[in-house]
Protein backbone atom coordinates (compact mmCIF):
# COMPACT_ATOMS: atom_id res chain seq x y z
CA UNK A 1 0.00 0.00 0.00
CA UNK A 2 2.78 2.37 0.94
CA UNK A 3 4.63 1.47 -2.27
CA UNK A 4 1.59 2.20 -4.36
CA UNK A 5 1.15 5.53 -2.64
CA UNK A 6 4.78 6.39 -3.18
CA UNK A 7 4.61 5.39 -6.87
CA UNK A 8 1.55 7.50 -7.31
CA UNK A 9 3.30 10.41 -5.67
CA UNK A 10 6.37 9.99 -7.91
CA UNK A 11 4.20 9.77 -11.00
CA UNK A 12 2.34 12.87 -9.99
CA UNK A 13 5.58 14.71 -9.28
CA UNK A 14 6.96 13.67 -12.65
CA UNK A 15 3.83 14.82 -14.42
CA UNK A 16 4.04 18.12 -12.56
CA UNK A 17 7.70 18.56 -13.50
CA UNK A 18 7.05 17.59 -17.13
CA UNK A 19 4.33 20.13 -17.43
CA UNK A 20 6.98 22.84 -17.18
CA UNK A 21 9.14 21.44 -19.96
CA UNK A 22 8.48 22.82 -23.41
CA UNK A 23 7.53 19.86 -25.56
CA UNK A 24 7.07 19.91 -29.33
CA UNK A 25 3.61 18.50 -28.80
CA UNK A 26 2.07 21.02 -26.54
CA UNK A 27 -0.30 19.87 -23.84
CA UNK A 28 -2.34 21.37 -21.11
CA UNK A 29 -4.18 19.34 -18.46
CA UNK A 30 -6.42 17.54 -20.86
CA UNK A 31 -5.62 18.39 -24.47
CA UNK A 32 -2.59 17.35 -26.49
CA UNK A 33 -1.90 18.81 -29.91
CA UNK A 34 0.44 17.01 -32.24
CA UNK A 35 1.51 16.54 -35.85
CA UNK A 36 0.28 19.99 -36.82
CA UNK A 37 0.98 20.76 -40.45
CA UNK A 38 -0.17 22.74 -43.40
CA UNK A 39 0.78 22.99 -47.04
CA UNK A 40 2.80 25.44 -49.05
CA UNK A 41 0.32 27.64 -50.90
CA UNK A 42 0.57 28.39 -54.64
CA UNK A 43 1.56 31.98 -55.49
CA UNK A 44 -1.26 34.41 -54.90
CA UNK A 45 -3.35 31.93 -52.91
CA UNK A 46 -5.01 33.56 -49.94
CA UNK A 47 -6.27 30.46 -48.15
CA UNK A 48 -4.70 27.37 -46.69
CA UNK A 49 -5.89 24.37 -44.69
CA UNK A 50 -4.22 23.32 -41.43
CA UNK A 51 -4.27 19.81 -40.01
CA UNK A 52 -3.42 18.21 -36.69
CA UNK A 53 -4.32 15.61 -34.10
CA UNK A 54 -6.05 16.69 -30.90
CA UNK A 55 -6.24 14.23 -28.04
CA UNK A 56 -8.55 14.87 -25.13
CA UNK A 57 -7.60 12.87 -22.05
CA UNK A 58 -10.06 14.72 -19.86
CA UNK A 59 -13.52 13.74 -18.65
CA UNK A 60 -15.30 16.49 -20.53
CA UNK A 61 -15.65 17.23 -24.22
CA UNK A 62 -13.97 20.39 -25.46
CA UNK A 63 -14.41 22.32 -28.65
CA UNK A 64 -11.95 23.86 -31.09
CA UNK A 65 -13.49 27.18 -32.05
CA UNK A 66 -10.82 29.16 -33.88
CA UNK A 67 -7.41 30.67 -33.52
CA UNK A 68 -4.94 33.19 -34.75
CA UNK A 69 -1.55 33.38 -36.42
CA UNK A 70 0.59 36.28 -37.45
CA UNK A 71 0.29 37.12 -41.16
CA UNK A 72 -3.12 35.48 -41.47
CA UNK A 73 -6.27 37.63 -41.50
CA UNK A 74 -8.47 35.10 -39.79
CA UNK A 75 -8.58 31.51 -38.67
CA UNK A 76 -11.79 29.51 -38.78
CA UNK A 77 -12.72 25.88 -38.37
CA UNK A 78 -14.08 24.41 -41.58
CA UNK A 79 -15.12 21.07 -42.92
CA UNK A 80 -15.03 19.72 -46.43
CA UNK A 81 -17.44 17.10 -47.64
CA UNK A 82 -17.85 15.32 -50.94
CA UNK A 83 -21.50 15.17 -51.93
CA UNK A 84 -21.23 12.69 -54.79
CA UNK A 85 -18.55 14.28 -56.94
CA UNK A 86 -19.27 17.78 -55.67
CA UNK A 87 -16.87 19.37 -53.20
CA UNK A 88 -18.49 21.49 -50.51
CA UNK A 89 -16.68 23.51 -47.91
CA UNK A 90 -18.44 24.91 -44.89
CA UNK A 91 -17.52 26.81 -41.79
CA UNK A 92 -18.30 24.96 -38.57
CA UNK A 93 -19.83 27.93 -36.75
CA UNK A 94 -19.83 26.07 -33.42
CA UNK A 95 -16.35 24.71 -33.94
CA UNK A 96 -15.26 21.10 -33.79
CA UNK A 97 -15.99 18.88 -30.81
CA UNK A 98 -13.15 16.92 -29.25
CA UNK A 99 -14.96 14.26 -27.19
CA UNK A 100 -13.62 13.18 -23.81
CA UNK A 101 -11.08 10.39 -24.08
CA UNK A 102 -10.82 10.63 -27.85
CA UNK A 103 -8.42 11.81 -30.53
CA UNK A 104 -9.77 13.93 -33.34
CA UNK A 105 -7.71 14.14 -36.52
CA UNK A 106 -8.07 17.09 -38.83
CA UNK A 107 -6.90 15.99 -42.26
CA UNK A 108 -7.17 16.82 -45.97
CA UNK A 109 -10.58 16.10 -47.40
CA UNK A 110 -12.29 16.65 -44.04
CA UNK A 111 -12.23 18.95 -41.06
CA UNK A 112 -9.48 21.56 -41.13
CA UNK A 113 -8.23 24.76 -39.60
CA UNK A 114 -8.90 27.34 -42.30
CA UNK A 115 -6.24 30.01 -42.63
CA UNK A 116 -7.79 32.92 -44.53
CA UNK A 117 -6.52 36.18 -45.95
CA UNK A 118 -2.87 35.16 -46.02
CA UNK A 119 -0.61 38.18 -46.32
CA UNK A 120 1.98 36.06 -48.11
CA UNK A 121 2.17 32.41 -49.20
CA UNK A 122 3.16 29.65 -46.82
CA UNK A 123 6.53 28.31 -47.90
CA UNK A 124 7.67 24.73 -47.62
CA UNK A 125 9.81 24.15 -44.54
CA UNK A 126 8.45 27.21 -42.75
CA UNK A 127 7.07 26.81 -39.21
CA UNK A 128 3.94 28.68 -38.24
CA UNK A 129 3.36 29.55 -34.62
CA UNK A 130 -0.41 29.10 -34.38
CA UNK A 131 -2.64 29.83 -31.42
CA UNK A 132 -5.70 27.60 -31.36
CA UNK A 133 -8.68 28.51 -29.21
CA UNK A 134 -10.68 25.94 -27.32
CA UNK A 135 -13.94 26.53 -25.50
CA UNK A 136 -12.67 25.12 -22.19
CA UNK A 137 -8.91 24.81 -22.51
CA UNK A 138 -8.59 28.36 -23.82
CA UNK A 139 -5.69 29.35 -26.04
CA UNK A 140 -3.01 26.81 -26.90
CA UNK A 141 0.02 27.40 -29.11
CA UNK A 142 1.47 24.86 -31.46
CA UNK A 143 3.84 24.90 -34.42
CA UNK A 144 2.42 24.02 -37.83
CA UNK A 145 5.05 22.71 -40.21
CA UNK A 146 4.61 23.75 -43.84
CA UNK A 147 4.75 20.68 -46.10
CA UNK A 148 4.93 20.67 -49.93
CA UNK A 149 1.96 21.93 -51.97
CA UNK A 150 0.32 18.56 -52.61
CA UNK A 151 1.19 16.84 -49.33
CA UNK A 152 -1.52 14.50 -48.11
CA UNK A 153 -0.03 13.69 -44.73
CA UNK A 154 2.57 15.06 -42.34
CA UNK A 155 5.85 13.51 -43.43
CA UNK A 156 8.59 12.98 -40.87
CA UNK A 157 7.61 15.79 -38.60
CA UNK A 158 10.81 15.54 -36.63
CA UNK A 159 12.98 13.81 -39.21
CA UNK A 160 15.48 15.25 -41.60
CA UNK A 161 13.84 14.06 -44.87
Amino acid sequence: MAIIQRSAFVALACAFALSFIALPALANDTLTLKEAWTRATPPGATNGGGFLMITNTGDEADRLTGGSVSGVGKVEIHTMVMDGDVMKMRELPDGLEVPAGETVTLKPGGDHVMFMQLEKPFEEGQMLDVTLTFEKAGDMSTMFMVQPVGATEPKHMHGSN
Partner: protein
Amino acid sequence: MTTLSAVRYALWALLAGVVIGVTAAALGLFPGAQKGTVSGTATLGAPFTLTAMTGEPYSWEPATGAPHAIFFGFTFCPDVCPTTLYEMTTWLDRLGSDGESIKALFISVDPERDTPEKLANYLSAFDDRIIGLTGSREDIDKVAGDFRIYHKRVELDDGDYTMDHTASVLLFKPDGSFFGTIAYGEDAETAVDKLRRLARS
Protein backbone atom coordinates in the same frame (compact mmCIF):
# COMPACT_ATOMS: atom_id res chain seq x y z
CA MET B 1 -56.14 -18.20 -50.67
CA THR B 2 -57.73 -16.01 -53.29
CA THR B 3 -56.08 -13.02 -51.73
CA LEU B 4 -52.70 -14.77 -51.77
CA SER B 5 -53.09 -15.66 -55.44
CA ALA B 6 -54.00 -12.09 -56.24
CA VAL B 7 -50.92 -10.87 -54.42
CA ARG B 8 -48.79 -13.41 -56.26
CA TYR B 9 -50.17 -12.32 -59.65
CA ALA B 10 -49.64 -8.70 -58.73
CA LEU B 11 -46.02 -9.38 -57.79
CA TRP B 12 -45.35 -11.27 -61.03
CA ALA B 13 -46.93 -8.44 -62.99
CA LEU B 14 -44.77 -5.94 -61.15
CA LEU B 15 -41.62 -7.97 -61.80
CA ALA B 16 -42.49 -8.29 -65.50
CA GLY B 17 -43.04 -4.56 -65.64
CA VAL B 18 -39.68 -3.87 -64.07
CA VAL B 19 -37.91 -6.24 -66.48
CA ILE B 20 -39.62 -4.67 -69.50
CA GLY B 21 -38.88 -1.20 -68.20
CA VAL B 22 -35.22 -1.86 -67.56
CA THR B 23 -34.80 -3.54 -70.94
CA ALA B 24 -36.52 -0.66 -72.68
CA ALA B 25 -34.37 1.82 -70.83
CA ALA B 26 -31.21 -0.07 -71.70
CA LEU B 27 -32.13 -0.34 -75.38
CA GLY B 28 -33.82 2.97 -75.88
CA LEU B 29 -32.27 5.46 -73.54
CA PHE B 30 -28.75 4.10 -73.30
CA PRO B 31 -27.97 2.68 -76.73
CA GLY B 32 -24.27 3.25 -76.05
CA ALA B 33 -24.35 0.77 -73.19
CA GLN B 34 -24.55 -2.13 -75.64
CA LYS B 35 -21.34 -1.08 -77.31
CA GLY B 36 -19.53 -0.67 -74.02
CA THR B 37 -19.27 3.08 -74.30
CA VAL B 38 -20.50 5.69 -71.88
CA SER B 39 -24.00 6.97 -72.44
CA GLY B 40 -24.72 10.55 -73.34
CA THR B 41 -21.31 11.15 -74.90
CA ALA B 42 -22.69 13.30 -77.63
CA THR B 43 -24.03 15.93 -75.26
CA LEU B 44 -21.13 16.40 -72.84
CA GLY B 45 -19.19 19.55 -73.57
CA ALA B 46 -19.74 22.09 -76.31
CA PRO B 47 -17.41 24.43 -78.17
CA PHE B 48 -16.40 27.46 -76.11
CA THR B 49 -14.12 30.45 -76.14
CA LEU B 50 -12.80 31.67 -72.79
CA THR B 51 -9.83 33.77 -71.73
CA ALA B 52 -6.56 31.98 -71.10
CA MET B 53 -4.29 32.99 -68.23
CA THR B 54 -2.11 34.72 -70.82
CA GLY B 55 -5.02 37.08 -71.49
CA GLU B 56 -5.51 35.62 -74.97
CA PRO B 57 -8.79 34.07 -76.07
CA TYR B 58 -8.75 30.28 -75.86
CA SER B 59 -11.13 28.15 -77.87
CA TRP B 60 -12.02 24.53 -77.39
CA GLU B 61 -14.17 22.37 -79.56
CA PRO B 62 -14.67 18.65 -79.78
CA ALA B 63 -12.34 16.92 -82.22
CA THR B 64 -9.40 19.16 -81.51
CA GLY B 65 -7.09 16.30 -82.38
CA ALA B 66 -5.62 16.25 -78.88
CA PRO B 67 -6.71 14.32 -75.81
CA HIS B 68 -7.99 16.67 -73.11
CA ALA B 69 -8.25 16.56 -69.34
CA ILE B 70 -10.69 19.27 -68.27
CA PHE B 71 -11.43 20.21 -64.68
CA PHE B 72 -13.02 23.07 -62.81
CA GLY B 73 -12.01 24.87 -59.63
CA PHE B 74 -10.96 28.22 -58.19
CA THR B 75 -7.83 29.66 -56.65
CA PHE B 76 -9.45 30.52 -53.31
CA CYS B 77 -10.04 26.81 -52.83
CA PRO B 78 -7.89 25.55 -49.96
CA ASP B 79 -7.91 21.82 -50.45
CA VAL B 80 -9.40 20.08 -53.46
CA CYS B 81 -8.14 22.41 -56.20
CA PRO B 82 -4.47 22.62 -55.21
CA THR B 83 -4.59 18.88 -54.52
CA THR B 84 -6.03 18.09 -57.95
CA LEU B 85 -3.57 20.46 -59.63
CA TYR B 86 -0.69 18.90 -57.76
CA GLU B 87 -1.90 15.40 -58.59
CA MET B 88 -2.34 16.32 -62.25
CA THR B 89 1.23 17.62 -62.18
CA THR B 90 2.56 14.35 -60.76
CA TRP B 91 0.41 12.24 -63.12
CA LEU B 92 1.69 14.11 -66.18
CA ASP B 93 5.20 13.87 -64.83
CA ARG B 94 4.87 10.11 -64.38
CA LEU B 95 3.51 9.70 -67.91
CA GLY B 96 6.61 11.38 -69.30
CA SER B 97 6.60 11.43 -73.10
CA ASP B 98 3.43 9.28 -73.12
CA GLY B 99 1.50 12.25 -71.83
CA GLU B 100 2.94 14.92 -74.08
CA SER B 101 -0.14 15.10 -76.29
CA ILE B 102 -2.53 15.64 -73.35
CA LYS B 103 -3.87 19.12 -72.85
CA ALA B 104 -5.03 19.93 -69.34
CA LEU B 105 -7.52 22.77 -68.88
CA PHE B 106 -8.29 24.23 -65.46
CA ILE B 107 -11.47 26.31 -65.78
CA SER B 108 -12.29 28.74 -62.98
CA VAL B 109 -15.80 28.64 -61.54
CA ASP B 110 -14.96 31.89 -59.72
CA PRO B 111 -14.20 34.34 -62.55
CA GLU B 112 -15.04 37.33 -60.33
CA ARG B 113 -11.86 36.70 -58.32
CA ASP B 114 -9.82 34.62 -60.77
CA THR B 115 -8.41 37.08 -63.26
CA PRO B 116 -6.04 35.77 -65.95
CA GLU B 117 -3.11 37.24 -63.99
CA LYS B 118 -4.19 35.54 -60.78
CA LEU B 119 -4.57 32.21 -62.56
CA ALA B 120 -1.17 32.55 -64.22
CA ASN B 121 0.48 33.33 -60.91
CA TYR B 122 -1.29 30.50 -59.08
CA LEU B 123 -0.69 27.90 -61.78
CA SER B 124 3.02 28.70 -61.98
CA ALA B 125 3.36 26.28 -59.04
CA PHE B 126 2.13 23.39 -61.21
CA ASP B 127 2.88 21.63 -64.51
CA ASP B 128 3.16 24.17 -67.31
CA ARG B 129 0.94 22.04 -69.53
CA ILE B 130 -2.02 23.05 -67.35
CA ILE B 131 -3.80 25.97 -68.98
CA GLY B 132 -5.92 28.19 -66.73
CA LEU B 133 -9.10 29.61 -68.21
CA THR B 134 -11.50 32.24 -66.98
CA GLY B 135 -14.16 34.45 -68.53
CA SER B 136 -17.37 36.31 -67.86
CA ARG B 137 -19.75 34.83 -65.32
CA GLU B 138 -22.19 34.19 -68.13
CA ASP B 139 -19.64 32.32 -70.25
CA ILE B 140 -18.39 30.26 -67.32
CA ASP B 141 -21.94 29.28 -66.38
CA LYS B 142 -22.60 28.22 -69.95
CA VAL B 143 -19.42 26.15 -70.19
CA ALA B 144 -19.96 24.53 -66.78
CA GLY B 145 -23.53 23.68 -67.81
CA ASP B 146 -22.37 22.17 -71.10
CA PHE B 147 -19.91 19.96 -69.19
CA ARG B 148 -22.53 19.21 -66.50
CA ILE B 149 -20.35 20.74 -63.82
CA TYR B 150 -22.24 21.74 -60.71
CA HIS B 151 -21.08 24.99 -59.14
CA LYS B 152 -22.65 27.26 -56.59
CA ARG B 153 -21.50 30.29 -54.66
CA VAL B 154 -21.84 29.85 -50.89
CA GLU B 155 -21.51 32.85 -48.60
CA LEU B 156 -19.20 32.73 -45.61
CA ASP B 157 -19.15 35.42 -42.94
CA ASP B 158 -17.57 38.85 -43.46
CA GLY B 159 -18.44 38.90 -47.16
CA ASP B 160 -16.17 35.98 -48.04
CA TYR B 161 -17.51 33.16 -50.11
CA THR B 162 -16.57 29.72 -51.31
CA MET B 163 -17.66 27.71 -54.32
CA ASP B 164 -19.19 24.25 -54.21
CA HIS B 165 -18.21 22.50 -57.39
CA THR B 166 -17.84 19.16 -59.12
CA ALA B 167 -14.30 18.05 -58.40
CA SER B 168 -13.89 15.34 -61.05
CA VAL B 169 -11.50 15.59 -63.99
CA LEU B 170 -13.27 15.00 -67.34
CA LEU B 171 -11.33 13.21 -70.05
CA PHE B 172 -11.94 13.65 -73.78
CA LYS B 173 -10.47 11.70 -76.67
CA PRO B 174 -8.83 13.50 -79.62
CA ASP B 175 -12.09 13.12 -81.56
CA GLY B 176 -13.91 15.00 -78.78
CA SER B 177 -15.84 12.03 -77.43
CA PHE B 178 -16.04 11.58 -73.69
CA PHE B 179 -13.49 9.07 -72.39
CA GLY B 180 -14.30 9.02 -68.68
CA THR B 181 -13.52 10.80 -65.44
CA ILE B 182 -10.93 10.79 -62.71
CA ALA B 183 -12.70 11.24 -59.39
CA TYR B 184 -11.35 13.36 -56.54
CA GLY B 185 -9.13 11.18 -54.39
CA GLU B 186 -8.79 8.46 -57.03
CA ASP B 187 -5.81 6.19 -56.67
CA ALA B 188 -2.74 7.57 -58.50
CA GLU B 189 -2.08 4.30 -60.37
CA THR B 190 -5.60 4.24 -61.77
CA ALA B 191 -5.42 7.91 -62.72
CA VAL B 192 -2.10 7.50 -64.53
CA ASP B 193 -3.42 4.39 -66.28
CA LYS B 194 -6.50 6.29 -67.47
CA LEU B 195 -4.39 9.16 -68.77
CA ARG B 196 -2.04 6.75 -70.53
CA ARG B 197 -4.97 5.05 -72.25
CA LEU B 198 -6.42 8.47 -73.06
CA ALA B 199 -3.14 9.58 -74.66
CA ARG B 200 -3.17 6.49 -76.86
CA SER B 201 -6.85 6.79 -77.79
